[in-house]
C-alpha cells in the first residue's frame, strides 16, 4: 500500500487482508525474511504501505484513541447586585471557554445580564431585563455520515493506520505531490480536515423585556409588557482545495437573523371572600416573528485559502429566504383557592395565526386543574405528613410554519444564464386545520414521617389530533412529501418519584431519590392514503409512525430466519426478506434513576445512577464497521491462515433446513451481510444501559474559618460526569450517543465523537 493504488488494500478504506504480526512465524526461531536475524514480531509480513516500502505489518491498537486530546472547559461567573429603597439592579457576567476533545475545535460563550426594577410611585412599578449572549467557535467538529466528521475514517479504516504519523506529517506531501495521507480516495488526512476545513460559527443574541405595572385599586392591576428575542448567527463550512470531495475547494456561508417580539397586556383582579381567594387574569398578546436567511455556496475557489465570495470560481449559489409570522391571542385565567386546601385553575386562550388558511386560523384551547391538599382538610395519623391529590385536563392548539399553503417554483442555478425553475416537491395541503393535543393527568403526592419518605405519582393520557406534519408522498405522485393533518396519536404513561431520608442527624444525612417513568404511544389513526409517517431514514431503514403501532418503530429489511431462529443461507450467504418488517422501537420500556446524597458535617457526596430499559438503536458504526472489517466481530472466519485462504463455514441452514457447508471468506460475508443484502436486523441493538451518571463532592468551608476573610460563603467541589457505563448491550458505542433528540433522528447512530468522561472542580464564593 503506497497510497497510489499499489500495495495491499490501497485505495480502500477497509481492514481486510492478512493478520497483523503474522510472520511466517515470529516464534519459530527461523530467519524467515532472510535479514540475518531471527524474526521479530511483524517481520515476516512486510508490506508496502503509505509510509514507505517493505514495512512491518503491525496493528495500531490506539489509532482511534490517539486522535483525541483532553478537552478543557472553564466557566467563570461574577454577579453584582445593588438595591435601594425603591430601585434594585443586578448585573452578571458568565464566561465559558471550552477546547474540544477533537483537536482544533472549541466553543466559548459569554453572557451579560442586566436586570432592574423601580417603584415609580405607590401604584406604578416598572422592571426590565436584558441579556446579551455571544457564542463563538473557530471550528466545530463535523458530525454524521460526512467526510468532515473525522470519526468516520476510523470506521472506514485500516487498523494499521498510525494516527500519530498522520498528525506529524499532515502538512507535508508524499512522493506523488498529494497531501500526506494513508489513501487518496474517500478519506482526507484527519488533521488536514481539522486544521484546514474549518467550520466557524458565531451567534449574537439579545433577549429581554420591559414591563410596567399599575395598581388601579387594591384588588385590580394592569400590566403591560414588551419582550424581544433576537439573534444573528453566521455559520461557515470550509473545504480547502485538495479536499477529496471538493478538489477545487468550496465553502458555504449562512447568515441568519431571527427576531421574535411579544407584546402583552394583562389585567389581574385579586380578591378574597372569607376563605375563598379568587384571582382572575385577562390578557391579550401580539406575537411577530421575523426570519431571514441568506446563504451562499461557492462551489470552487480561484485562489486557495481565501473564503470570500469574491474568490469564487464560477457563479456562487445564493439562497435568500425571509418569512413573517403573526399570532394574535386573547386569554384568561382564573384561580380559586379555598382555605389553603382546594385549588382550582381554569384557563382559556384563543389564537389567530397567520400561517393557517383564512377561515380555519382561529382556535380556542382551555384547561382545568384541580388540586386538594387533604392533609390540610382532615386530620391524619401522625405518620402521614402531607397528602395532595391533583387532576387536570388541558388542550393546546398549534399552527404551522409560514408559507405552507401554496405551491411555489424553486429556482435552480441558471443554465448558461437562462433562469431555471422547478415546482416545489411538497404537495400543499388542500384544507389545513389547527392541531390539538389534549391531555388528562391525575397525581398523588404523599409525604410520611416528617417528610422523610415522599411519594409523587402521576398518570397521564394525551391525544394529539390533526398534527400538522409533512409526510412522505409516493414519488410517483410527482411529490416527495405532503403537508397534512395527520390522524391521531395517543400517549399514556406514569411518572413516579420516591424520596427517602433514612438517616438525618446533625452531622450526618443520607437522602435517596428514585425516579421512574414509563410512556406508551400508539398511532391510532392516519389519514386516508397515508400508511405511515416516516420520521427518519438512513440507509433504507425507516423510523415510522404506522397506524396501530407504537410511535417510532424501525422498519427495515431482515435476513431470513427459520422457525428455530437459524439464519437461512443461500450459497453460503444470507438471504433477505422481500418486504420490510418492524425491527425495533425507539421508545424505552422505562427510564429511571437513583440519586444518593451523603452529607457529613460540611461535606456532601452525591452520586447518580441512571437506568434505561429498552430503546433500540440503529448503529451504523456497527454496520459499516463490519463492512469495513475494523470491528472485532468481523474476526469470525479470519482466525487462521486457513480460514482466510479457504473460507469459513458460517453457521446457518440452507433453504431445506440442512446445515450450511459452503465456506465463505470473511470479507465477502461481512460486505454482503452489512451492505449488499441491505439487511438491518443485526445492526439494530437494544439501547438499555445502567450508568454512573454523576458524582459530586462539595465542601463548605466553616463559617468560623471564613469570618476573618472577605468571603461570606466559600465552597469547593469536585465532580465527575458520565463516569462509568455499568451495563450496556450495545457494542463499541455509548448507548446515549445518537444523532439527536428530534424525532427524525432519534435512534440513529453513526460516527459520534465518543462521549466524554468529564471531571471538574468548582469554587463558589460569595462576598
Amino acid at each position: 500500500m503506497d497510497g497510489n493504488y499499489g500495495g495491499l488494500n490501497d485505495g480502500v478504506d477497509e481492514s481486510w487482508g492478512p493478520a497483523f504480526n503474522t510472520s511466517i512465524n515470529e516464534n519459530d526461531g527461523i530467519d524467515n525474511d532472510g535479514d540475518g536475524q531471527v524474526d521479530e514480531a511483524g517481520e515476516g509480513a512486510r508490506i508496502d504501505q503509505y509510509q514507505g516500502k517493505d514495512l512491518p505489518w503491525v496493528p495500531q491498537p490506539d489509532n482511534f484513541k490517539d486522535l483525541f486530546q483532553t478537552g478543557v472547559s472553564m466557566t467563570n461567573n461574577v454577579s453584582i447586585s445593588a438595591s435601594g429603597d425603591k430601585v434594585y439592579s443586578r448585573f452578571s457576567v458568565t464566561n465559558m471557554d471550552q477546547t474540544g476533545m477533537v483537536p482544533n475545535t472549541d466553543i466559548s460563550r459569554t453572557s451579560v445580564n442586566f436586570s432592574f426594577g423601580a417603584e415609580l410611585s405607590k401604584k406604578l412599578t416598572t422592571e426590565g431585563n436584558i441579556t446579551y449572549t455571544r457564542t463563538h467557535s473557530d471550528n466545530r467538529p463535523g458530525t454524521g455520515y460526512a467526510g468532515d466528521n473525522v470519526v468516520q475514517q476510523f470506521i472506514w479504516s485500516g487498523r494499521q493506520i498510525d494516527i500519530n504519523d498522520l498528525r506529524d506529517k499532515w502538512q507535508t506531501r508524499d512522493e506523488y505531490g498529494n497531501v500526506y495521507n494513508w489513501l487518496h480516495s474517500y478519506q482526507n488526512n484527519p488533521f488536514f480536515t481539522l486544521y484546514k476545513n474549518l467550520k466557524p460559527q458565531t451567534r449574537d443574541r439579545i433577549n429581554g423585556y420591559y414591563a410596567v405595572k399599575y395598581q388601579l385599586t387594591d384588588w385590580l392591576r394592569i400590566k403591560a409588557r414588551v419582550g424581544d428575542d433576537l439573534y444573528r448567527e453566521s455559520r461557515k463550512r470550509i473545504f480547502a482545495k485538495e479536499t477529496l470531495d471538493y478538489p477545487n475547494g468550496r465553502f458555504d456561508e449562512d447568515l441568519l437573523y431571527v427576531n421574535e417580539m411579544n407584546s402583552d397586556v394583562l389585567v389581574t383582579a385579586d380578591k378574597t371572600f372569607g376563605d375563598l381567594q379568587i384571582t382572575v387574569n385577562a390578557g391579550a398578546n401580539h406575537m411577530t416573528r421575523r426570519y431571514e436567511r441568506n446563504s451562499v455556496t461557492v462551489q470552487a475557489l480561484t485562489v486557495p485559502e481565501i473564503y470570500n465570495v469574491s474568490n469564487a470560481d464560477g457563479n456562487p449559489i445564493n439562497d435568500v429566504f425571509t418569512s413573517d409570522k403573526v399570532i394574535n391571542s386573547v386569554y384568561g385565567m382564573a384561580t380559586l383557592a379555598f382555605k389553603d386546601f382546594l385549588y382550582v385553575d381554569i384557563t382559556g386562550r384563543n389564537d389567530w395565526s397567520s400561517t393557517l388558511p383564512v377561515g380555519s386560523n382561529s382556535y380556542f384551547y382551555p384547561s382545568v386543574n384541580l388540586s386538594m391538599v387533604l392533609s390540610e382538610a382532615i386530620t391524619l395519623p401522625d405518620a402521614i405528613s402531607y397528602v395532595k391529590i391533583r387532576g387536570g385536563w388541558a388542550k393546546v392548539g398549534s399552527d404551522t410554519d409560514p408559507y405552507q399553503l401554496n405551491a411555489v417554483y424553486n429556482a435552480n442555478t441558471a443554465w448558461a444564464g437562462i433562469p431555471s425553475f422547478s415546482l416545489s416537491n411538497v404537495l400543499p395541503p388542500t384544507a389545513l386545520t389547527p392541531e390539538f393535543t389534549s391531555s388528562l393527568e391525575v397525581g398523588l403526592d404523599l409525604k410520611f414521617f416528617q417528610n422523610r419518605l415522599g411519594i409523587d405519582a402521576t398518570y397521564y393520557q394525551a391525544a394529539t389530533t390533526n398534527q400538522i406534519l409533512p409526510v412522505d408522498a409516493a414519488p410517483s405522485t410527482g411529490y416527495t412529501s405532503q403537508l397534512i393533518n395527520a390522524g391521531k396519536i395517543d400517549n399514556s404513561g406514569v411518572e413516579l418519584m420516591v424520596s427517602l431520608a433514612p438517616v438525618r442527624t446533625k452531622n450526618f444525612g443520607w437522602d435517596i431519590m428514585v425516579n421512574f417513568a414509563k410512556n406508551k404511544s400508539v398511532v391510532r389513526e392516519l389519514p386516508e392514503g397515508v400508511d405511515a409517517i416516516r420520521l427518519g431514514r438512513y440507509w433504507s431503514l425507516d423510523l415510522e409512525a404506522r397506524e396501530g403501532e407504537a410511535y417510532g418503530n424501525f422498519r427495515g429489511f431482515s435476513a431470513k430466519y427459520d422457525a428455530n431462529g437459524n439464519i437461512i443461507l443461500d450459497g453460503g450467504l444470507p438471504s433477505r426478506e422481500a418486504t420490510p418488517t418492524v425491527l425495533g422501537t425507539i421508545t424505552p420500556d422505562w427510564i429511571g434513576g437513583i440519586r444518593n446524597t451523603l452529607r457529613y458535617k460540611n461535606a456532601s457526596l452525591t452520586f447518580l445512577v441512571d437506568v434505561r430499559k429498552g430503546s433500540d438503536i440503529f448503529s451504523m458504526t456497527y454496520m459499516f464497521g463490519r463492512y469495513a472489517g475494523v470491528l472485532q466481530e468481523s474476526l469470525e472466519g479470519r482466525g487462521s491462515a486457513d480460514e482466510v485462504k479457504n473460507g469459513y463455514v458460517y453457521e446457518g441452514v440452507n433453504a431445506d433446513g440442512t446445515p450450511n457447508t459452503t465456506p465463505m471468506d470473511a470479507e465477502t460475508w461481512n460486505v454482503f451481510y452489512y451492505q449488499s443484502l441491505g439487511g438491518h436486523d443485526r445492526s439494530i441493538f437494544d439501547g438499555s444501559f445502567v450508568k454512573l451518571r454523576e458524582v459530586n463532592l462539595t465542601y463548605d468551608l466553616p463559617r468560623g474559618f471564613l469570618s476573618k476573610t472577605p468571603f461570606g460563603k466559600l465552597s469547593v467541589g469536585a465532580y465527575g460526569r458520565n463516569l462509568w457505563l455499568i451495563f450496556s448491550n450495545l457494542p463499541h458505542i455509548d448507548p446515549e450517543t445518537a444523532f439527536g433528540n428530534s424525532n427524525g433522528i432519534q435512534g440513529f447512530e453513526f460516527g459520534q465523537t465518543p462521549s466524554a468522561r468529564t471531571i471538574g472542580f468548582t469554587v463558589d464564593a460569595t462576598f
Partner: protein
Amino acid sequence: MMKKYLYKLFLLVLVVAVAPACTDDFAELNTNPNAPTDVPSTNILVSAITNSISRIHGADMNMTYGGLWAQHYAKIQYIDEDYYSYRTANMDAHWTGLYVGPLLDLQTIIEKEDTPANMKAAAMTLKAYIFSVITDMWGDIPYFSALKGGEAIQPVYDSQEDIYKDLVVQLEQAAGMFDEGGDDLGAGDVLYGGDISKWIKFANSLRMRLLNRMSGVNPAAKATLESMINSGASIISSNDDNASLVYVGDVSYSNPLYANKHYSGRNDHASSKTMVDMLLSLNDPRIAVYAEPTKNDPSVYNGQPNGSVQPGDFGTISLIGEAFRDDPEGPSHVITYAEMLFIKAEVMNDKQAYLDGIAAAMEMYDLTPSADYLSAAGAAFDTDYIQAIANQRWIALFGNGCEAFSEYRRTGYPSTIQEVPGSVYPGKGVPYRFAYATTEFTTNGSNLNTAISSQGIDDSGLFGAKMWWAK
C-alpha cells in the same frame, strides 16, 4: 411623570387588545415573497430537459447501474454494483429524481391552460421519453394515475404493455401537434435551440425506438414501424438532428461524468473489458475515444473485467476515455442518427442502413470506418444480421448506458455480456431490471406489492419475469 407613563401604558393596552381582531392582512402576510407561484414555461422546460437528461446519462444511473450492467464500464473501487449489489438509496434517487422534478414540471406545462401547442408538444415528447426510460428500467410503473398529486396519492402500477401502447400514441400526437410556424419555445429549449422541425424528428424517432423495442411481442408495432419507414416519416436523418444535450461546462452544469471525476474527485470506474475486447477484436478506431491506454504501457488497452476484484495496480487498467470523463461540455446523446439507421437495418434487414449506421456512429467522433472495417462488418451482418446490428448499436450507445442495458435485455447481444464472476446472485444472470424504490414501500406499499407479485420479482429485486418487450 406618572401621567406620561399611564398614557403610554394605555396606548399599549389599546394596541394589543384591538390587534387580535386584525386578521385581515393574514392572507397577504402568509404569501411567500421568496418564490413565484407561476413562471414562464420555457424556464420550467430548461429545468426538465437538463435534470432528466443529466440524470439518465449521469454518474449514477448510467455509469454505476445501466451502463455498468450493460458492461460499457466496470468498477475498480467499491465493486458492489458490479457484483449486482445495488444500494437501495441509489434506486430511490433514480426513481424520485425522474418522477419528482422533471416529470412533474412537464406535467405542469402540459396542464397549464395557456400553454401554446409547440410548448405542450415538446413537454409531451420529453415526458414520453422519461417515462420510457422508467418503464425500461423498472417494468410496471405508475403511469396513468401518476403525477396527479393529491388526486391519486397512491398511484396504481400499470403494465409495461399498456404504458408502451400509450407512449407511442402520445408521441404520435405530439409530433402532429408541432407547428413550425407556431409559437417559439423560448430560451429554455436547450436541446434544439427552438428548431421545431428537429423536435418533430425527435418525437418520431423516439416513437420508432419504442415501436422497435416492442416489435418482438407486438406485431402491430412492427407493421407501424414498417409503414413509418416506407412512408419516410420525418425522423433524425443526420448527426445534426441528434437529440443531444451539450453542457454549459461550468461548476453547476458540467457533463455529469466530468463532474463526478473533477468536482467530486471520484475515480471508481474504468472501461469494461467487454467493451475494450469488442473494439479490439473489430479493430475499431473508437477504442482511442472510449478508453484510455493503460498508464503503465501507453500502447496497451486493457479493460477491467466486470464484477472482478479490484485491480492490484490501477496502472494496468484502461480508464474511460477523455471525451467522456474529461470534457466539461461533453454532450449526452438521447437519441442519434445511428440508432435510426440500425432500426431501419433491423426492421428491413437492410445491410446498407447498417453500414451507414456504423459510419454515422463513428462520425460523431470525427472518425470514418475503413474499407476493411466495413467489409468485416458486412460479413458479420451476412452471418447473423440481428446480432451484428445489436453489437454495433451497443458500441454506438456508449455513454447512454440505460438504453444499452435495455437493448441488451431485448436482444441478448452482445453475447460476450455474461453474468459477472462475483455476482451476489450466482446463476441468475445479468439483472433483468432495477429494484423498486424503497420509499414506495412506505408510501404506496399495497400497489407496489401487487406489481412485484404480478411480475414475479424475487427477493433480490432484480430478477423475476423479464421485461414485457424482452419475452
